[in-house]
C-alpha cells in the first residue's frame, strides 16, 4: 500500500508554491457560468410572495386572479389559511411564469388576509423579552463569590454583538427541472453539491439516484447555502406542474437579506476579576442571544481563555419573530471572541495594565499557551505596539484619536468526508473527480496541486473535475473542512492510481513496483533517473485500459494518518483612528497572525485571511440587521442601508501565516473560518483604547460611538 504521508516540506515541487487559481481567467473575464446565469431552453421564472407581518395567522388566500395572469404556468400556496406566520418574509406562495415580470405581477395579485398577532423582534434588553427567553442550566466552576472578594480589581459590563446576514452576492436559489420521467436536474447555488441531492430527493420523495446536481461556481455561501430550501422545493414542484420545464428562482435581495440566513446575536452582562499582577481569577456571565423563532445562538464564553479558575455562566435563548439563523463563517465564534476579549480588555484598562502584556500573562488560561504567547508577541511587533500603544483614552489633543486593540481566536478545521476518483488514461491524461465545490477559496487549484505533486507532474498536466453528483461524494464546504478533506482524498486516490501504474510498468523497468517512483514527469527506479520511462510512455503501456482508483478521507482515521488535522489559534491587532466629533472610525491597519498547518497554496491561503479580516471590519464598523419594533420587519434589507465595507474602508491589512516545519508536520488545516473571528474584538478594543470609553454594542457606527462618548446607552 502506498505511503500517503505528505512529502518533506523542503522537497515539495507544486504544493507550497503559489500558482494562480485555475479558474481565475474564467471568472475575471465574466465567462464563468454560475447557476444564476443559466438560461435553459423553455425556462420559466418563479418568484415568491412573502409575508409582510412578523407574526400573523393566514385567514384566507385567494389566488384566482394571479392564476389567470397572462404567462403564469403554475402557482403554489406555501402557507394556506390557518398557517401561523412566525417572521416577516415567511414564504406565502410561489408563482412561475414565462417571464420574471409576469411572475412578479401575478404574485402581486394574490390576495392574502392575515390576522395579525403580537410580535417580538428585538432582544437587546433581556428584561423586555423575559417571556420569550428560555434559560439553560447554570455552569459553575470553582468559587466565584470567593474569587470576587479576593480579587484586586473587579469589572462589570454589558456587551452586545448584533445579528448579521450573510450577504452572498449570488443570491440563494436555483434552476430546477422535474421532468415527467421523475428525474430532477438541479442547479442550485450551494456549498454542498453532494448532500443537497439527498436533501432534495427526500423533499420531493424522489429516489436520490434520480436527482442530478451540477454547479461549476458558487457566488458566496459563508455558511448559508447547504439546503435546497423551501424555494428550491417549490420551484421543483412548479417545474413538475409545467411538464418539466426548468424553473429559475433566485431570491430578490430584499428577501435574501431577510430569510436566507443570518448570524445569531450575542449579549451578556459580564463580571471579571483579576489580581494586581493581571492574572484573571473570575468569569461570570449572564448571556442571551437570539437565532430567530427557535432561539439558538450560544456563544461559548469565556472564549479561548477557557481555564479561568472560577466561573459561572448562564445563558438564555430568546425566541424572536425573525427568520432562522444559519451557520455563519465560524458559528458563535465572533460573538464569543467579542464577549470575551472586550471585558478582558476593559479589565486590563482598569488594572492600568498594557493589554498586550495582560493577554500574554493570561495565555496560561488557554488550551495553547505557547501558541498565543508567540502570536501575541508577533502581532505586537507587526502592529508596532511598543511605539503606538498608549494607555486607554490617553490619545492626545485634537479630534482624531488613535488606538490599538487585540482579539484572539481559535477554530477546528479538520477535513470532512471526501472521496476522490483518480483516472489515468493511456495517453497520459490524468483527472480527478470529486463531488465538492470551490467557494472561492481555491479548492480547484489546491486539488490540482496535490494531484500534480503526488504524481510528479506539472500543474498543467492534470485536470480537476468538481461540482457534480456523478463524481464521488464530498462533504459540505462548511467549518473550514474542505481543504483537509479534498487534499487527503486526492492524495490517496492519486497514490492508489500510481501504484497500479507502477505495477503495469514494473516489468518494462526491470524493477519491482515498490521500487519505483514518479518524479519530474517520469516513472523511474528509485534514485536512478537512468532507468526511467516518461509519464506518457509509461501510460502507453496501459494499452486500452485506464486506471481508475479512489481514495477517501475518513475523519475518524485522519488524526492517525496525519494528512489533515484541526485546531488553530490566531491573534489580530487593530489600529484605528476615531474622530470624536463625528464618531467615524477609520481603519489604519489590521494585523493577523495565524496558525495554519500545511499550506498548499500560500497565495490563496493569504487571500482567505485578507477576506476574513475584511469581513471582520464590515462586522465591527458597519453591519447590523435592524428590526423595526412596530412593523416587525427588517428595515435595512438592501445594500444601501445594510452596509458593507468598500475598497477604501479597510485600511492596510498585514498577514502573517505561521508557515514553518512544525506547523507543516500537523497536516492540512482549514483556514476559511479562523481569521474571520478575532478582528471584531480587536477593532472594538482599539476604539475603546482610542476614545477612552467602551462602545458596548457592536457595530461601532458613528451613532454608537457618539452615544458612548456622551455616556448615553446605545
Amino acid at each position, binding site marked *: 500500500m502506498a505511503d500517503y504521508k505528505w512529502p518533506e516540506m523542503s522537497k515539495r515541487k507544486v504544493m507550497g508554491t503559489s500558482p*494562480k*487559481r485555475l*479558474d*481565475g*481567467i474564467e*471568472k*475575471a*473575464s*465574466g*465567462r*464563468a457560468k*454560475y447557476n*444564476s*446565469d443559466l*438560461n435553459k431552453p423553455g425556462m420559466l*421564472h418563479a418568484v415568491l410572495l412573502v409575508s409582510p407581518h412578523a407574526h400573523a395567522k393566514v385567514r384566507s388566500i385567494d389566488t384566482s386572479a394571479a392564476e389567470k395572469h397572462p404567462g403564469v404556468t403554475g402557482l403554489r400556496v406555501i402557507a394556506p389559511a390557518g398557517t401561523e406566520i412566525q417572521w416577516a418574509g415567511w414564504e406565502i406562495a410561489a408563482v412561475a411564469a414565462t*417571464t*420574471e*415580470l409576469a411572475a*412578479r405581477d401575478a404574485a402581486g395579485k394574490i390576495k392574502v388576509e392575515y390576522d395579525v398577532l403580537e410580535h417580538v423582534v428585538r432582544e437587546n434588553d433581556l428584561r423586555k423579552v423575559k417571556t420569550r427567553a428560555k434559560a439553560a442550566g447554570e455552569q459553575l466552576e470553582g468559587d466565584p463569590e470567593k474569587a470576587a472578594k479576593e480579587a484586586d480589581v473587579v469589572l462589570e459590563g454589558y456587551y452586545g454583538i448584533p445579528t448579521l446576514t450573510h450577504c*452572498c*452576492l*449570488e*443570491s440563494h436559489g436555483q434552476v430546477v427541472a422535474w421532468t415527467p420521467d421523475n428525474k430532477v436536474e438541479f442547479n442550485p447555488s450551494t456549498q454542498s453539491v453532494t448532500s443537497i441531492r439527498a436533501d432534495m430527493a427526500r423533499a420531493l420523495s424522489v429516489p436520490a439516484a434520480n436527482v442530478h446536481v451540477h454547479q461549476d*461556481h*458558487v*457566488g*458566496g*455561501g*459563508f455558511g448559508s447555502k447547504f439546503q435546497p430550501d423551501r424555494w428550491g422545493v417549490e420551484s421543483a414542484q412548479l417545474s413538475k406542474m409545467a411538464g418539466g420545464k426548468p424553473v429559475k428562482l*433566485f431570491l*430578490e*435581495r430584499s428577501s435574501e437579506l431577510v430569510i436566507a440566513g443570518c448570524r445569531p446575536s450575542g449579549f451578556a452582562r459580564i463580571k471579571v476579576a483579576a489580581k494586581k499582577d493581571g492574572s484573571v481569577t473570575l468569569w461570570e456571565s449572564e448571556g442571551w442571544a437570539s437565532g430567530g423563532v427557535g432561539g439558538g445562538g450560544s456563544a461559548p464564553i469565556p472564549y479561548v481563555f477557557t481555564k479561568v479558575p472560577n466561573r459561572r455562566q448562564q445563558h438564555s435563548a430568546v425566541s424572536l419573530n425573525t427568520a432562522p439563523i444559519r451557520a455563519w463563517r465560524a458559528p458563535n465564534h465572533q460573538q464569543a471572541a467579542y464577549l470575551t476579549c472586550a471585558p478582558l480588555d476593559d479589565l486590563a484598562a482598569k488594572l492600568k495594565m498594557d493589554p498586550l502584556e495582560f493577554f500574554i500573562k493570561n495565555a496560561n488560561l488557554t488550551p495553547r499557551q505557547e501558541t498565543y504567547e508567540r502570536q501575541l508577541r508577533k502581532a505586537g511587533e507587526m502592529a508596532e505596539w511598543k511605539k503606538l500603544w498608549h494607555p486607554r483614552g490617553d490619545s492626545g489633543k485634537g479630534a482624531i484619536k488613535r488606538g490599538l486593540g487585540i482579539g484572539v481566536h481559535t477554530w477546528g478545521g479538520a477535513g470532512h468526508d471526501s472521496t476522490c476518483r483518480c483516472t489515468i488514461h493511456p495517453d497520459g491524461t490524468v483527472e480527478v473527480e470529486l463531488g465538492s465545490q470551490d*467557494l*472561492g*477559496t481555491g479548492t480547484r487549484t489546491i486539488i490540482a496541486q496535490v494531484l500534480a505533486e503526488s504524481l510528479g507532474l506539472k500543474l498543467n498536466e492534470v485536470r480537476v473535475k468538481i461540482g457534480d453528483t456523478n463524481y464521488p461524494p464530498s462533504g459540505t464546504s462548511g467549518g473550514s473542512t474542505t481543504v483537509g478533506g479534498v487534499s487527503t482524498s486526492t492524495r490517496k486516490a492519486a497514490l492508489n492510481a500510481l501504484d497500479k501504474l507502477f505495477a503495469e510498468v514494473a516489468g518494462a523497468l526491470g524493477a519491482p513496483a515498490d521500487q519505483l517512483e514518479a518524479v519530474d514527469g517520469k516513472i523511474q527506479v528509485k534514485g536512478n533517473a537512468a532507468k526511467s520511462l516518461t509519464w506518457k510512455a509509461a501510460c502507453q503501456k496501459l494499452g486500452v485500459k485506464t486506471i481508475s482508483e479512489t481514495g477517501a478521507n475518513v475523519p475518524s482515521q485522519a488524526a492517525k494518518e496525519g494528512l489533515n488535522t484541526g485546531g488553530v489559534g490566531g491573534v489580530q491587532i487593530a489600529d484605528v483612528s476615531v474622530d470624536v466629533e463625528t464618531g*467615524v472610525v477609520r481603519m489604519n491597519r489590521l494585523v493577523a497572525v495565524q496558525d495554519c498547518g500545511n499550506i498548499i497554496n500560500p*497565495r*490563496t491561503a*493569504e*487571500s*482567505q485571511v*485578507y*477576506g*476574513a*479580516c*475584511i469581513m471582520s471590519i464590515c462586522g465591527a*464598523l*458597519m453591519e447590523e440587521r435592524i428590526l423595526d419594533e412596530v412593523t416587525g420587519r427588517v428595515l*435595512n434589507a*438592501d*445594500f*444601501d442601508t445594510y*452596509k*458593507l*465595507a*468598500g*475598497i*477604501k474602508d*479597510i485600511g492596510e491589512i498585514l498577514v502573517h501565516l505561521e508557515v514553518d516545519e512544525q506547523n507543516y508536520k500537523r497536516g492540512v488545516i482549514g483556514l476559511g473560518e479562523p481569521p474571520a473571528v478575532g478582528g471584531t474584538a480587536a477593532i472594538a478594543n482599539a476604539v475603546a483604547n482610542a476614545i477612552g470609553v467602551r462602545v458596548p454594542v457592536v457595530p461601532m457606527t458613528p451613532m454608537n460611538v457618539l452615544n458612548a462618548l456622551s455616556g448615553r446607552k446605545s
Partner: protein
Amino acid sequence: MSHRKDPASKDNKQGSGFSRRGFMQGIGVTGAVAPALTGAEAEAQSVPGVIGPGAVAITLNINGKAMKATVEPRETLLDVLRNHLDITGAKRVCDRGNCGACSVLVNGKVMYACSILALDAQGKQITTIEGFAMAGGKPHPVVQAFVDNDAQQCGYCTPGFVVAAKAFLDRNPKPTYEQVKDGLGGNLCRCGTYVGIRKAVLQAAQGGSNG
C-alpha cells in the same frame, strides 16, 4: 460609509423606500418617450408618445453588434442582457445601484446596468465585460492583473470590478494608490478581495505583470 458613485450616474437616484420597479413602470409610458423618439427604432416611432405597457422590439448596440430583443418598457438593461440576450457577465446582486456587480460601459462611461432602462440604452454603445475581457483570445491586462494578484474569490463581483477598473484606468491611466482606493469605491465585494484588487489595478496601470 463606502465611497460610492452616484448610481448609474446618471438618471434618477432614489431613496431606499422607493419602489424602483413601480417607478420604472411609470417611466415606461412617460419618461422614456424622449430617448425612444430620438432613437433609431422604427417600431418605437410608429407609436409616438407612448411605449408599452406591452413589450416592444428594440435594438441595442452591444459589444459592437446590433442585438434585437422584445422587452417591456420597465425592463432594465441588466435584465435584458441576462434574461433576453444570455450575456451574463454582469451580475444581478443588489438590483438597485449599490454594489456595482452589474457594471457595464455606456458610451465608454461605467454605469450600473440595473439602474438603466433597456429602452434608454438604445442608440448608445454598450460594452459588457464580454466585449473586451478576452478580445483577440488574450486576457485584457486588467483581467490578467486580477488573476495575477488573486483579486477574486467567489468571483461574483469580479466582472463588475474588472469593468469598473478598466473604465477607471481609461480615465486615469496612471493612478496613485490613494486614487485607486477612491476610484473603485462604487463596487462591493463580500469575500473581501480588496487587497488584491488594489494591487491588480496598480499592476494594470503599470502595464506589467507580477506573474
